[in-house]
């Protein structure tokens, strides 16, 4: 055994030893999660499952407001019942229909829970409801401070600081106009107010009595039937080979077509068009236009009309007003299409007045734009 082999063997042994005992093949112990667990008996588990299947009646009952002391809520009556309240001198026979039968659909009176019973209250928080606002927009915005100027962006007021090293240009505070995501009617607003605070604090749930053990044991589900093997598919038949053609003439034709096509492409690409707009750039344009697309004054028919509007843009991102035109419409008549087009045109002009934020190097990609204004989600429901 020569010296080289000895050195090599020693080195390998040392390396293998280091790998085995030095920790290279030992990974750090995975982090573990501690979970609190409580052992429940079979009967307790059955009791929990029974409770989960109880219909949630309390949440759906239309509970009437308790009348104020000395005040009775008026009953809806046919029109002829109204004179009864003023008791006219001739004292005519009451034209009102006879006593109205009790409502079958009306919810029964909600019995007051006994002292030691708790109401079931869902633990999930109710869906937050919108406040009514004069403006409905894709994003809700709180009411701005009284002295705040309405603007798309929020920025604090800047006042000149005499002691500062650099003079900062003063500017007034701005904030977006108050907006809600959906129309809120008085009825919905009232519901919110009613739901906002429960009439009384909810008592904690009493621990349920231990139920009797179930008399029957649920049968284990039978084994599912084995799935049938799918039928073997027949192998596709090989396609017949194309017949040989006269390649020389074909090639000449292809060469001609190729040359013509490349020639056209070369003409078209004389000015750089840049890569296509990214999804983010398209989204930014869409958001910029929809901010000014006001459908609040449109008729209900115009709100059912989708219009496609074409516009050519200048290189600084401004729409050329004269080029805005209606390409097509669907869902409404000509008058409705005109109203919808007018609203779309106003949106393009208003929000494009200062130029849309579009990449200049891709001008050829957005020089001509077709915008589809689809008001489906903005209709009165």
């Amino acid at each position, binding site marked *: 055994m020569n010296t080289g082999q000895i050195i090599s063997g020693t080195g390998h042994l040392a390396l293998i030893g280091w790998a085995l005992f030095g920790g290279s093949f030992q990974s750090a112990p995975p982090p573990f999660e501690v979970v609190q667990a409580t052992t429940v008996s079979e009967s307790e588990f059955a009791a929990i499952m029974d409770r989960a299947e109880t219909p949630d009646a309390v949440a759906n009952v*239309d*509970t009437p*407001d308790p009348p104020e002391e000395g005040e009775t*809520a*008026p*009953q*809806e009556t*046919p*029109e*002829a019942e109204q*004179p009864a*309240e*003023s008791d*006219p001198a*001739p004292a*005519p026979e009451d*034209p009102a*229909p006879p006593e*109205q039968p009790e*409502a079958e*659909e*009306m*919810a029964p009176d909600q019995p007051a829970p006994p002292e030691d019973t708790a109401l079931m209250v869902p633990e999930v928080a109710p869906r937050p409801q919108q406040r*009514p606002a004069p*403006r409905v*927009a894709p994003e809700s915005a709180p009411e701005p401070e009284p002295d705040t100027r309405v603007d798309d962006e929020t920025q604090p007021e800047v006042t000149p600081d005499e002691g500062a090293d650099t003079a900062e240009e003063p500017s007034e505070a701005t904030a977006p106009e108050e*907006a809600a995501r959906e129309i809120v*009617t*008085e*009825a*919905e607003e*009232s*519901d919110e107010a009613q739901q906002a605070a429960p009439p009384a604090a909810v008592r904690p749930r009493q621990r349920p009595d231990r139920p009797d053990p179930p008399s029957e044991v649920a049968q284990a589900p039978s084994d599912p039937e084995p799935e049938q093997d799918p039928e073997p598919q027949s192998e596709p038949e090989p396609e017949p080979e194309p017949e040989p053609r006269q390649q020389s003439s*074909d090639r000449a034709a*292809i060469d001609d077509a*190729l040359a013509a*096509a*490349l020639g056209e492409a070369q003409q*078209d690409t004389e000015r750089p068009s840049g890569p296509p707009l990214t999804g983010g750039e398209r989204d930014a344009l*869409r958001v910029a236009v*929809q901010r*000014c*697309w*006001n*459908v*609040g*004054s449109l*008729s209900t028919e115009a709100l059912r009309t989708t219009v496609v509007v074409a516009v050519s843009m200048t290189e600084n991102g401004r729409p050329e007003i004269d080029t805005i035109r209606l390409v097509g419409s669907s869902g409404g008549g000509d008058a409705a299409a005109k109203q919808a087009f*007018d609203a779309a045109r106003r*949106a393009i002009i*208003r929000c494009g007045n200062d130029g849309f934020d579009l990449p200049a190097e891709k001008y050829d*990609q957005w020089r001509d734009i*077709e915008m*589809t*204004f*689809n*008001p*489906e989600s*903005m209709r*009165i429901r």
Partner: protein
Amino acid sequence: MMRTMISLLAVLTLWALPAIAQDRGPLRIEITEGVIEPLPYAVPDFVADGSEAQDMARDLSRVIAADLSGTGLFREISQDAHIGRVTSFESPVEYADWRAVNAEALITGKVRFEGSDRMVVQFRIHDVFAGDELGDGLQFSGTRDGWRRIAHKVADEVYSRITGEDGYFDSRVVFVSESGPKDQRAKRLAIMDYDGENVQYLTDSSSIVLAPRFSATGDRVLYTSYESGSPRIYVLDVANVGRRVLPTLEGSMSFAPRFAPDGRAVVYSLTQGGNTDLYRMNIDSGDSTRLTSAPSIETAPSYSPDGNRIVFESDRSGTPQLYIMRADGGEAERISFGQGRYGTPVWSPRGDLIAFTKQSGGRFHIGVMRTDGSEERLLTASFLDEGPTWAPNGRVIMFTRETRGAEGQSRVYSVDISGRNLKQVDTPGGASDPSWGPLQR
């Protein structure tokens, strides 16, 4: 091999050409979310042709602005914020000045007097951002004391051109004017402009009057009165306030009348022997035809705009609910299935919706639903809301709201069918039971 490669390359290039060509088309984006907010507009004082028309020019523009802004669909740009000044009706408009104050629509006009009694109003509507007029200029003329009607007509035209729907400003409302405490309330019929102006009384308060209803042409009013001791239906001519009682069966009570759209028939409720059913009467002949025959209470009928169907209220299912039947009677179909009691249904002039009163959970609501009962929406909620009536364009609903307590008063309110723009109509004293008439001609 080389030939094959070249051929393949050529075919691929040809295949890709359409895609290249398509890529060079316009950029296409879809806008699906916008905003719903009042459209900002400007209406500078109309130009006065002569110093004597100065006040009238200002008053006209203020009524037009009140009409438009009162819809909740428009927001006036305050005159203090105007940069541009319109000193001549004929001069071209400096649109940039109005764009600068963010006005999307501009209304300019001129008023002049002709003789001692007549006035002429000319106006134009401008689409500021398009830099062009919105339609042709128009001119209205009339008597001086009818200046508010002229202003309403201008506002109707503006509303119509911008929204695409007919306006409702030049219309009137008949209602029950109320005065005195709740237990001794005097009631009389009155008529007013839609905005509460120009109130005129049609009856005195010597007897109780109820439920006035305009005819489709606005020339007559049906109402119920206790003048004879028991409720009877009267028809009143609005022009000369002449009236006559409609014939009814001996020993019966008739109430809740409503005109058919053609104005030649009346559908109403009649109680006889403790049972209330619906009848239709030919106004000229006085002949009545029974439409329903059930032991339950059928009342509050209202025709569809085409006159072919009637929606009404019945408790045949145990609680008051809404039903629709043919105008000549027959099987009725229930359309309301929500929780609570439904009443006083009124068919929209457009024919697509039915407004109603609903009592549920100890509160009263005004709501709308489609004629098949779907898409029910509650627009209001209060101690007592009832008796909806539609604006002639089917966009706004007026109704009675009564406040709680012994001192509670009835007032007339209006609300947009979207549930926005809920507001009280200014009336002198208490008011209830409004019935909105058609646009005046």
